[in-house]
């Protein structure tokens, strides 16, 4: 099925949920509200003529200062049987930074959602094990947010692991290496 037809189908079924449909380079994005995201995903996964069985990718995007609401969670879905793909984007606001988890539809969403939580701070309701994954457990902040500094002098706020390394280096400064 053509991506545009799929987008129309979604719009027909969820009139109040679909905010916008965008088409660029033959790839169609459907922008939806986050409230009924799980229902939409279930529909896409279980309808025989759509049958999106492969969750290719799930990621977050931060549009700080570019638009409101600030975050988007982007789902790339693919159907191996029908060979078509669609992109679903759910808008997530900064003050209510959470969205329903889709782990019970696609098991593979597990780690993608953990990563999104780790790097963007978007919580996934109903996720079985929402922990940090790439950053250390005691890390503060969410590095992929646009207001997170790329490089800075954090001083006392520096992560303690780095402080330890600097201390050891300071201590060993006096020794000459021959």
């Amino acid at each position, binding site marked *: 099925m053509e991506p545009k037809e799929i987008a129309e189908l979604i719009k027909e079924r969820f009139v109040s949920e679909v905010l916008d449909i965008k088409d660029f380079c033959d790839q169609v994005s459907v922008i939806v509200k986050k409230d009924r995201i799980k229902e939409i995903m279930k529909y896409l996964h279980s309808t025989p003529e759509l049958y999106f069985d*492969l969750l290719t990718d799930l*990621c977050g995007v931060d549009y700080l200062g570019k638009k409101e609401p600030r975050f988007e969670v*982007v789902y790339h879905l693919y159907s191996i049987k029908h060979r078509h793909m669609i992109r679903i984007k759910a808008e997530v606001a900064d003050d209510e930074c959470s969205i329903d988890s889709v782990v019970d539809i*696609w098991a593979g969403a597990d780690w993608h959602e953990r990563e999104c939580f780790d790097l963007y701070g978007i919580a996934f309701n109903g996720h079985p094990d929402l922990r*940090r994954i790439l950053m250390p457990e005691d890390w503060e902040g969410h590095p992929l947010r646009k207001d997170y500094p790329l490089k800075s002098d954090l001083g006392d706020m520096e992560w303690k692991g780095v402080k330890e390394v600097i201390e050891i280096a300071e201590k060993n400064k006096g020794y000459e290496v021959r």
Partner: protein
Amino acid sequence: MTAGTGEIKTKELTISMGPQHPATHGVLRVVLDLDGETVVKCTPYVGYLHRGTEKLAENRTYLSALPLMDRLDYISSMSNDIGYCVAVERLFGIEPPERAKYIRTIMGEMTRISSHIIGVATHALDIGAMTLFLYSFRDREWLLDLFEMTCGARLTVSYPRIGGVRNDVSQKFLDSLYKFTEEFPKKIEDEYETLIDQNRIWLQRTKGIGVISAEDAINWGLTGPTLRGSGVPYDVRKYAPYDAYDKVEFDVPIGKNGDVYDRYKCRMEELKQSNRIIKQCIEKMPTGPVMAPDAPKFTLPPKDKVLTDMESLIHQFVLITKGPMNAPEGEIYAATEVPKGELGFYIISDGTGKPYRLRLRAPSFVHVSVLPVLCKGGLVSDVIANIGTIDIVLGECDR
């Protein structure tokens, strides 16, 4: 234990395997809850090699983000670069010339061979078959020498460019590679397969181990040989061809049982198919330029032009310092089939010279997440076989 009653008290034991462990292929830590020798629960921990590639790429121009891609899956860096270039080209609407497409296809398949033989060899080494490891390094050396001949680097190549490849390949390269394709199938049959295909130890360690059904494999998002071992013929090269894959003939080998052995067989068959693709590409190789001429605002002008032509000098300067200035606003998801599976790039462009968001869909990341499913209920020794069979590189997993 109390003497005479015959009752033995047991309790679950938790052990940590890695991050420094020779069989975890990098810095993967797996925490195992054991009941005797049976794995009750397996929890992988990743992130030890996290370098913030996505964040770095957002702050670099499209051109200078390319070398970061080398360092994802560092044993198949050429494939990552090709994937990135294909994604950016689709975003910008650039069509690379035919010859560049063929060269990229050759390079991609050479990488697949070198990655698969390393994957299978380290997998076999973990299980106890050492000879294969030595053979594989001999063959990989040939391919790495050819990379070196073309671009000067063996591992972190940065050879493909947005709009083509950096430079043309020499006739000497093509001759040597053709000789390789003539000899390699015989080596697979005589040396690799006779060593382990019928080996009783190998069969006992791999058959019926780490079984995952086709349905589960898709649900977990597996791709590449790890998915095809379960009998799903999903291959990006066939489903959404890029470069010259629609102009060559090849088969997509699939397994049946979805166990460690079937995934191994898939990789072995893919070696032969890659060899076939390379051979066809050399035979069909068209002549012509290797960089898209119609995209001077996106691709670096040749060096001799820069030194003699004012406009080229300006283009070079702007491209290096600010990146492509007339990038379209939009977003694209482009997937390529790298040796490990489907490598996807999701790029959002806001019209500046730097990507607003660059998301990497790394196959290894998804494959590590399925490890608990493969290991549950198996023996400790099968954990090693399972880590080998999903063929992960932690550089790509942690990004």
